[in-house]
């Protein structure tokens, strides 16, 4: 039994903009897709997916079913995912992050086809993080980095955080900021992950308009007010990994004021859904601000795939979330 509250829901609407068609995606060539090719069939136009939130390496607290590049890559490809942005679980605790990043780059390369795009880790709490960042970009040729403030003993008020934002922007790197990895009620009792707020991003991103920032598993740390501020005042992208509730993406995009009317039949009677009562009260979130993130192999990849069907999105919205929004972030 979970109480429905603002932490649980992050929901709300597709703004006006009609999304541009699927843009040319990152430089990485698409790997061959899902088993059972549909080339030449009416399904051939169905979009593929860029998964912006997967992890390689060893989760510290148990073995995962699809851990490692072979198991995870094969699994993701079965679900029409053509590219996956991979961080490393080992970035949570390791001190020698260059070893973590080198292993991540090697793992991604080992799978082939540029399917996995490595997102290395830097930790502002460890001295000379700038060198780790430089190597991520210049040595391992990464397109972005991922940070885990709640585990890495710093928050976004850290004196070096503005430097991280400006330096990633200068290098054209995507900066992914992870809110949580799992429900804090499930933590190993010896672990006490720290609280932090995304709010300091807002002034920093105004100062760095070219910064490319994505929030992952952000939902427990973004209130409705902060969501409004982030949508209105920044260009950050949000992943789907922990968007919860029945029709959660519907609720997030539609909000309470701009509902489509849904007509359906139940118990032999025609009914109309004109409002999602559990939708949040903040402003609608444009579909351009969401990107598919599975949080695999920790979460089943099916969870976030199904969300795109559970919510009755338009084809344009679906394409944007599945592929084009992430593609634009990677290429602009």
């Amino acid at each position: 039994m979970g109480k429905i509250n603002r932490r649980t829901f992050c929901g709300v609407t597709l703004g006006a903009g009609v999304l541009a068609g699927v843009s040319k995606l990152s430089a990485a060539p698409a790997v061959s897709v899902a088993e059972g090719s549909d080339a030449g069939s009416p399904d051939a136009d169905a979009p593929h997916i860029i998964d912006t939130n997967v992890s390689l390496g060893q989760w510290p607290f148990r073995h995962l079913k699809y851990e490692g590049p072979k198991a995870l890559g094969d699994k993701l490809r079965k679900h029409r995912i053509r590219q996956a942005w991979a961080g490393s679980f080992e970035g949570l605790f390791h001190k020698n992050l260059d070893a973590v990043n080198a292993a991540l780059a090697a793992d991604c390369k080992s799978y082939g086809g540029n399917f996995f795009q490595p997102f290395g880790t830097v930790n502002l709490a460890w001295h000379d993080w700038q060198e780790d960042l430089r190597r991520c970009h210049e040595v391992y040729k990464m397109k972005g980095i991922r940070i885990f403030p709640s585990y890495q003993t710093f928050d976004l008020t850290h004196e070096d955080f503005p430097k991280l934002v400006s330096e990633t922007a200068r290098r054209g790197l995507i900066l992914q900021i992870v809110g949580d990895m799992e429900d804090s009620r499930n933590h190993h009792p010896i672990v006490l992950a720290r609280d932090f707020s995304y709010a300091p991003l807002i002034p920093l991103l105004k100062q760095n308009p070219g910064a490319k920032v994505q929030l992952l598993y952000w939902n427990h740390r973004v209130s409705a007010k902060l969501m409004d501020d982030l949508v209105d005042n920044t260009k950050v992208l949000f992943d789907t990994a922990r968007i919860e509730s029945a029709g959660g993406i519907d609720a997030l995009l539609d909000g309470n004021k701009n509902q489509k009317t849904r007509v359906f039949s139940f118990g032999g009677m025609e009914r109309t859904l004109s409002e999602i009562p559990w939708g949040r009260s903040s402003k609608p979130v444009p579909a351009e601000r969401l990107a598919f993130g599975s949080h695999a192999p920790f979460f089943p990849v099916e969870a976030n795939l199904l969300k795109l069907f559970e919510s009755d999105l338009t084809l344009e919205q679906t394409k944007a979330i599945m592929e084009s929004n992430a593609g634009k972030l990677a290429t602009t």
Partner: protein
Amino acid sequence: MRNNDFILNPALYGLPTKDELKSYRIWDSHYHGFYATNTPIKQHDAMLHYVERMGVERIISVDIGGTLAQPLTPMAHDPAQLDILKKYQERVLGIIPIDPGFPEESIKKMDQWIANGPCIGIKYVGGNKLGVTCNEPQNDAIISHARKLNAVVYIHTWIKVGGDPRWPGGGNLPGESAPWDVVELAKRFPDMQLICGHAGGDWELAIRTVRGQENVMFEFSGADPHSGSVDLAVKELGIDRLVWGGHGPSRSFSTEFSKVLDADLSHKERMKIFGENYRKLCKPVFDRKGWTLKV
């Protein structure tokens, strides 16, 4: 325009089609459509859109009569719930929250809603006024009465990390049962099957806890989806001890479906978790009421 059709073919994405979802005969044993402070009926009506859209055959509301916070206090929405249960019995069933701190009043509610009403079981809520967990002696009267009525017994459980020093279960609310409380109760009622709800919140610890107590069933809803969780439950508990719940609207059907779809199971095994095991569990109460049920 009807909005219950998917805009893309799920099979292209390695997902079940709408027809496949229906073929699982999904019974949502943990439906929270009525769980809303001010508008339970309105919320339920809205939820039905997603129930239909995701191919769910039957929903079992766990919020019938009163509220989770005040399970023994009649509420203004009770008559509307009763009407829905009678009118849509083929699609909507109900179990009633009780309060083990007040066994006599709980039994009275069971007589009203189960013996003389449309409901099929009881639910232990995640906490209560007097801080009574399900292992305490005063529960025996409630479970004995449930046995007499052939009622389904669902027990919310969680293992929340908390306390000083921190330990699993140290963060539970007063009266919020943990899986080990269910095991203690189940030992006193070996002929009753009790559902340990929410996979204890921490499925790895909960599976270890309940695996030796064969009359404890296991249900997964209401927690983040973790890959591999159902595989472990099947390995340690056996497929016949697992039941499925949706926990909407606070959880998505997608989240809860994915726990089963992630597991290495045959179609027949998925059917067992998605509905067949629960139907077997409630067959006796159906028989008692003279209702037909195809398991």
